[in-house]
């Protein structure tokens, strides 16, 4: 188990290191330097240009040698300093991101976990049942192939505009300020439902299909046939199959996090939901590269953390990793 975690932690550290390096490198090694790009986009007031050029050069720290720029970047990062946002000037990027995080946590955690549990349960239930396999699983394929933002758009249009059941914009009513009152919580839930259900549905389809296919593999494995030959009840065989099939699904959850996050980002854009995704869109539109860098780092950290939690869950579920044998995902 120590070996298993040792490897994992090493990979996480390397990943974080690489991600920070990418984050640092991209503005500096892309064609043209970031200052010129920013300047070109800021428009041209002759007297302001020179001033801004100096300012940006200093902010990016471009006036020192490359290796020092890199160390400075790390230094600032470890002090939690990600620069000042242009989009909401002059608030520090860290603060802007922290304001958005609660919305993301409350949206993503339930959507990911519930879809995973519900999808796996349903997939296991549907496997090798001819009727469900032919009626509901095609729906699963359609759902998992749906682009997140499109499902969000269709739901927003159908339930928000045509039927007027749900609001389709923002994280809470624009007339309110966040407080701990029933009115606010109710407003929050109303705005929360559509983004939640869009992410939930797409992922539900994916997990259900994955589980169904896994269970069929397992039911055709030798141990299942052996159990059947011994006369074990069908329910018991399926239970063993499920225990084995759930392991790749846990690994799958870890591997899929990046894609889910991407899906959540665009879903937030459709609903103008005030999470990180919406921030990223604003950062792109206002050329707020500090905010973009900050959001990127935050996503990396969140995904690494989630991966670590999943690793722990994996050890709890798969006894092989505990006894020192290499588990499936090691």
């Amino acid at each position, binding site marked *: 188990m120590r070996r298993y975690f040792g490897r994992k932690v090493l*990979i996480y550290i390397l990943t974080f290191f690489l991600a920070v390096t990418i984050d640092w490198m991209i503005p500096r090694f892309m064609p043209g330097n970031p200052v010129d790009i920013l300047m070109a986009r800021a428009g041209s007031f002759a007297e302001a240009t020179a001033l801004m050029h100096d300012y940006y050069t200093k902010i990016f720290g471009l006036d020192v040698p490359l290796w020092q720029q890199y160390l400075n970047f790390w230094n600032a990062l470890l002090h939690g300093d990600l620069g000042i946002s242009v989009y909401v000037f002059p608030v520090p990027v860290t603060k802007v991101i922290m304001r958005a995080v609660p919305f993301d946590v409350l949206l993503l955690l339930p959507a990911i976990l519930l879809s995973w549990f519900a999808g796996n349960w349903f997939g296991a239930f549907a496997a090798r049942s001819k009727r469900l396999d032919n009626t509901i699983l095609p729906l699963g394929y*359609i759902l998992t192939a749906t682009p997140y933002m499109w499902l969000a758009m269709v739901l927003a249009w159908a339930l928000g505009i045509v039927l007027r059941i749900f609001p389709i914009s923002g994280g809470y009513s624009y007339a309110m300020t966040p407080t701990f009152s029933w009115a606010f919580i109710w407003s929050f839930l109303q705005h929360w439902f559509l983004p939640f259900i869009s992410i939930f549905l797409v992922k539900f389809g994916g997990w259900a299909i994955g589980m169904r296919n896994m269970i069929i593999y397992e039911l055709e494995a030798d141990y299942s046939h052996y159990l059947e030959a011994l006369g074990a009840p069908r329910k018991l065989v399926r239970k063993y199959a499920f225990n084995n099939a759930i392991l790749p699904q846990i690994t799958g959850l870890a591997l899929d996090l990046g894609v889910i996050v*991407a899906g959540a980002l665009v879903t937030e854009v459709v609903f103008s939901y005030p999470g990180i995704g919406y921030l990223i869109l604003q950062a792109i539109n206002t050329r707020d590269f500090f905010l973009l860098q900050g959001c990127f780092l935050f996503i990396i950290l969140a995904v690494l953390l989630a991966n670590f939690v999943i690793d722990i869950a994996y050890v709890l579920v798969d006894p092989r990793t505990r006894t020192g044998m290499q588990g499936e995902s090691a």
Partner: protein
Amino acid sequence: MMNLKKNEMLYFALRNNKLKVGLAVLIVFVVLTLVGPLLTDYQPMDYVGPLAAPPSSEFWFGTTTFGQDVFTQFVHGLKASFLVGIVGGGLGTLLGMLVGFIAGYRGGIVDEILNTLTNIVLVIPTLAVLLIIVAYLEVRGIFIESVFIGCTAWPWAARAIRAQTFSLRTRDFVDLAKLSGMKPLKIIFTQIAPNMMSYLLLVFILQFGGAVLIAATLDFIGLGPTNAISLGLMMNNAVLWGALLLGIWWWFVPPGVAITAIVGALYVTNVGLDEVFNPKLREM
């Protein structure tokens, strides 16, 4: 012997409903992509009709708020999606094969390094990386976009191919090839790869679908091609110019339906092929 095996495959392929449905949908869209541009007199970005007109006999899919023909944009967007799928998915598969074969065949320290690299790229949310890279690029074409997508999509393919190679490299026929003095690269391509052709095809299909979805996502946040139309860009424009609020459903429904249908058909084809190749999965 070989012939018999082929016929057996064909026999099961023709009886597999998933495969038939998936391929049928794909063929419809391929034909639409090839024939579609001939059916319309307009260019995707031309302002040709009344503003925000619903579907009619003249404008089959209606027009946008600017009077662009949605059908024209749609068929040109389909072409972009297939291009991204082929280039992005193909590149992802090739890189995955390269890393997977070498890591799986070589083993030892080479495998250790490549595996660590794969796991690292696997953990990084690739869309976030693409976001950053693409946001800094001034001019973007569909081809460049596909290349970036391919470069970030290979890790899971590499993982899967590595695992397969591991199980094949200890087989007798590989040992025999080694004894006869065959070069490693030749062993990989003449002994190992042919034995997992079906598997590689499945990997490519999934990479194809994944690339189409990622491209749609990128295009949707306005990071798509700057010089062409795509299905994701259509959705981006629709949301940007209030198609939801104005109820112009014919603007954003077709591109989403097309992506869902193409990617869904690919997934279904994938499972169908899996059942054809793997006798254990066939339903009795």
